[in-house]
């Protein structure tokens, strides 16, 4: 790991450990849990869009697959939760592969609409054939491991953010590796990648699967936390929310995805008073950040810090 990444990672771990200790309020920790769940989806989309340059407006579909499959398996088939979660990830991976093979030949707008269409199809399936139909179903067991159920909010907070840390570590390693470089190369030029002997299609499919697996994991964790799910949590709007997290945080930086996820999750809590306005506020945030802060929070901060440092050096 590079020096900067290592430092960020240590600060990150410290924050995770400290937050529940500092803030005793269950409410804050709950918001923290949802931020972490969203962060998992956002990290996946960040790798897919920011690094490999492939658009997806269908992440809600994989998120929904994760939530429904692991809930159904644990409630109806009585499988241990960890097994259900893993099964859901496998289903999401297969779905992603089936979608990716034809879809990733498409570019730009066409890929965006194709993934959007996929997400909507999953949404319709959940509505029509999901247990409970549009009203959803409940009594989903809390997450547990080896007979020990995590019931407390703080426990769940540590579980979620612990997983975010693991996923983040995996993703940072991936991005900084040769494979990560190859992904960024695809973003720049398909033709040159071919001339370098890179299997562009395979790379694209794999990165798509990776983002789907992250989203599925997040969906499962969501379901086993709230214990009640309905299709409305997995609509197109969720895909757009994730898109927003990635853009607001900074599409070219994995930390941006995490910070974006926290910001976009905390935001509606702050805006509770303007309930009628939330869609509008989301829209404005997305529009304005696209127009004026295209780089996103984290890359802009990094630039500012660099400038400050140069300034300090110059002063000496």
């Amino acid at each position, binding site marked *: 790991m590079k020096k900067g990444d290592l430092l960020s990672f240590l600060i990150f771990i410290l924050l995770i450990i400290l937050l529940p200790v500092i803030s005793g309020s269950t409410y804050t920790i709950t918001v923290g849990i949802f931020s972490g769940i969203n962060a998992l989806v956002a990290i996946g989309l960040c790798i897919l*869009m920011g690094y490999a*340059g492939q*658009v997806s*407006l269908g992440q809600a579909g994989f998120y929904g697959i994760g939530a429904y499959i692991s809930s159904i398996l644990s409630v109806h088939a009585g499988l241990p939760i960890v097994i259900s979660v893993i099964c859901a990830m496998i289903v999401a991976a297969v779905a992603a592969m089936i979608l990716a093979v*034809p*879809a990733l*030949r*498409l*570019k*730009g*707008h*066409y890929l*965006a*609409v*194709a993934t*959007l*269409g*996929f997400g*909507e*199809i999953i949404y*319709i*399936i959940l*509505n*029509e054939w999901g247990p409970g139909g549009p009203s959803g179903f409940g009594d989903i067991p809390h997450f547990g491991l080896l007979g020990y159920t995590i019931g407390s909010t703080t426990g769940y907070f540590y579980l979620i953010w612990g997983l975010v840390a693991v996923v983040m570590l995996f993703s940072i390693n991936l991005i900084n590796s040769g494979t990560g470089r190859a992904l960024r190369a695809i973003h720049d030029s398909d033709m040159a990648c071919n001339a370098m002997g890179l299997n562009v299609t395979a790379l694209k499919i794999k990165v798509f699967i990776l983002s789907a697996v992250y989203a599925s994991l997040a969906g499962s964790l969501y379901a086993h936390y709230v214990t009640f799910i309905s299709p409305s949590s997995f609509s*197109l709007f969720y895909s*757009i929310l994730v*898109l927003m997290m990635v*853009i607001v945080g900074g599409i070219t930086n994995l930390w941006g995805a995490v910070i974006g996820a926290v910001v976009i999750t905390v935001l509606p809590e702050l805006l509770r008073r303007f309930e*009628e*306005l*939330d*869609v*509008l*506020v*989301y*829209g*404005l945030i*997305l*529009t304005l950040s*696209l*127009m004026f802060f*295209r780089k996103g929070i984290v890359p802009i901060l990094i630039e500012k810090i660099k400038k400050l440092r140069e300034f300090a050096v110059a002063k000496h």
Partner: protein
Amino acid sequence: MLTVFLQFLFSGLTVGAVYALVGIGFNITYNATSIINLAQGEFVVIGGLMMWFFAESLKLPFLVSVAFTIISAGIVGLLMERLTIKPLKNPDLLLMIMITIAVSIVLRGILMFAFGKDPYVYPSFTEGEPLSIYGAIIQQQTLWVIGITGFCIILLFFFFKKTMVGKAMLACAVNPTAAKLVGINVSRMVMLSFVLSAVVGAIGGMAITPISLMEYDKGPMLAVKGFCAAIMGGLGTNRGAVIGGFIIGILESMTAGYIHSGLKDAVALIILLLILFFKPAGIFVSKAMHQLRKF
């Protein structure tokens, strides 16, 4: 048997006409700018809801309401282009895709704030006995929808073929640099394309609302179906969008009628994916012609 079939057919043609208009809206902006405006569906919603506002809430006369609705949609299109599309400096494709999505959410947010989440409806344009063909009932409004769509198509055809402005807009699409060189104001043409596509969408919304109601969040699905109609005939060709719109409308209403109403949206989506995966150039378009189009 026949009666039921015809009934489904007519309702399919009605919604299909609106999809065709949305598809044409996509084409207009795509042709002038290569942008696929994913806020296209919101224009339809604006048409329906503003018409309700003028005609039902303010109780303005019918034609005045129509005029005001068209003007407001035009203004929305204009503002969208001037405030969000024009200021972008060297946008990449990713940004272009996302900005129109962002605008669609803003529009949806405004509509939700202004109109709430309830569906709206107003009476048909004309009152009168429905027609009956082999027992199948055709509401007068259905005829209005199809008639208005046809009228729009003919008008647009003449606009692009016969008027200077229309030709200039097409020129921008083919080669913006060359268009600029021969003195066409490209920036104005881009703006005009957004205004025009907004108006076309709003007209569809105005016409369909008495039949299928209108609510603030119908936009995305309308956009997806309209896009599906547009690519079926090859993006950019209005004739294709019209045929595509009717095909989707009819298949959708047959599915809803014969199979299950919850699946009607799935049909359009599956068709969309099949076209994108197997014939992204469009079903009615030859490969050679497709290669000539820029992507």
